[in-house]
């Protein structure tokens, strides 16, 4: 674990989860400290997405506990966890087809009751993603893949999250857009948002992150500061398939 003295914002202790009789996670331990970017790496089917879904309660943990800011959130509903400021940007983006970009963003601010705060957040998101501003009246599902990803992240930001769970934000994007997305992740982090990032592109994720975990078959096989993981050729070859 990182030697930082601050208590972790997010802490998983012995978390197991699965779908029906198939177990996808076998007792994983994981910590994220305030202000960090932590990345969760691994091959397809290693359990990365399940881990994020278990944290945000889209999948129920069958064992273990999840603590957010010291509070046990294991039994809470997904909506309650989101309201605590732990917001999941799911794989596949979930842009609402038939609603405009602006309406999609408004969904993100549903729990924000103060209209002034909603407006301010909208301005911030448009500042971060000018393309969403230009296209705010277009159907959100008609945006390009990269723009939809920005919309999904922008929508999560509308809620004013303390921590984001990002599931493969670069999936299906052109190489240049992948770099743009990573830059945005970095910027969000610099602005104070703690991030747990699931990424296929391990090399890129490790360049961005402070700390990394490698999942294999639902278990944590390796962990360490991102720089150390990146330097270890054998890890990159054995677990990250590059």
């Amino acid at each position, binding site marked *: 674990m990182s030697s930082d003295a601050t208590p972790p914002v997010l802490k998983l202790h012995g978390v197991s989860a699965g779908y029906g009789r198939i177990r996808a996670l076998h007792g994983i331990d994981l910590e994220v400290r305030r202000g960090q970017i932590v990345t969760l790496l691994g091959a397809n089917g290693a359990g990365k997405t399940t881990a994020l879904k278990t944290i945000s309660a889209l999948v129920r943990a069958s064992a273990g506990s999840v603590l957010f800011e010291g509070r046990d959130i294991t039994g809470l*509903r997904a909506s309650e966890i*989101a*309201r605590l400021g732990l917001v*999941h940007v*799911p794989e596949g983006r*979930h842009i609402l087809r038939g609603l405009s970009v602006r309406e999609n963003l408004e*969904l993100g601010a549903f*729990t924000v009751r103060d209209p002034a705060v909603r407006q301010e957040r909208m301005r911030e998101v448009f500042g971060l993603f000018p393309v969403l501003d230009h296209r705010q009246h277009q159907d959100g599902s008609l945006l390009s893949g990269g723009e939809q990803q920005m919309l999904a992240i922008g*929508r999560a930001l509308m809620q004013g999250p303390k921590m984001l769970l990002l599931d493969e934000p670069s999936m299906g994007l052109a190489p240049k857009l992948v770099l743009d997305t990573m830059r945005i992740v970095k910027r969000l982090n610099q602005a104070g948002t703690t991030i747990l990032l699931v990424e296929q592109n391990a090399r890129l994720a490790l360049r961005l992150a402070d700390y990394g975990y490698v999942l294999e078959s639902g278990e944590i096989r390796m962990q360490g500061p991102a720089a150390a993981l990146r330097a270890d050729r054998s890890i990159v070859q054995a677990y990250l398939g590059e």
Partner: protein
Amino acid sequence: MATDDRPGAGTTPALARLAGPLAALADNAAARRAGIVALLALMVVAPFVFGEYATVILTNALLYVVLALGLNVVVGYAGLLDLGYAAFFAVGAYTVGILTLRVGVNFWLTLPVAVCTAALAGVIIGGPTLRLRSDYLAIVTLGFGEIVRISARNMSITGMASGLSGIHQPWLFGWHIATPRDFYYLFCVLAILAVAVSVRLADSRLGRAWLYVRYDEDAAEAMGIDRVRVKLAAYVTGAIFGALGGVFFAVNLGAISPESFSFTQSVLILMAVILGGMGKIPGVILGAMIVILGPELLRSLGELRLLVFAVGLLLIMLFRPSGIWPGRGRQQ
């Protein structure tokens, strides 16, 4: 509300002519206001112009406007499929029947009881079911509808198969609501209230939550919207509309029997919602009018009328699968 479309509304050539003015009505606020005023005026004079028979039929159509608007909250706003909506209609009707006949309670005092009973039934049925995927709700509500009807058929308090009769016509501040015309105006008021509540709900915070849950419940949940609570709110709201419809249905007819609350009834109400356009208030009103007035207007066709009506419905669904009313509905 629909103005110029009642004659021949179930047939296809009329439908083609309808699209133009309907679209204008839907888009233009001034035209819409004029349309509403014209419709209200028509509602006021209708019993004098069309005679008693038409007044009775129109009263029935207004009842279906209330029921369809209630089901529209469930199906149109929240996107849940309810196949047993007539059950709540029955709960309202039997509450009035039992309380006024067997207990001797004043009619107006049965209203809050009917509302609470329906809400409670909604929570009991919806609470566990709405946690599951939407398909289960369709199955459970289908079963619930049949349970209510069959219970009513077999319990002595509900009068078994013959039902309850002799339900008294109510008094309202010295006005004895007795003639078909009285009931017509009573149902006008009810329908207008139902429209007003539907409009307010669609524009409310809850209305936006329904919209998001309908579009993508996972995304809504991830953004802090409790999907189960939001869906339950829709289901219970629909239940209350249905029960109120049932309450006034019972006093209007004076007699109720289990067969008024069959599966066919649930389907008819659902048809009104889907036909007019889910989530679109003017569309749902139009749908209710078509479902009730359509067969009446085609009466001259004799035995063929139900066939013609059914073919008309099929054509509407083929050519306007998202409902007759244009646009995507009130909820923005």
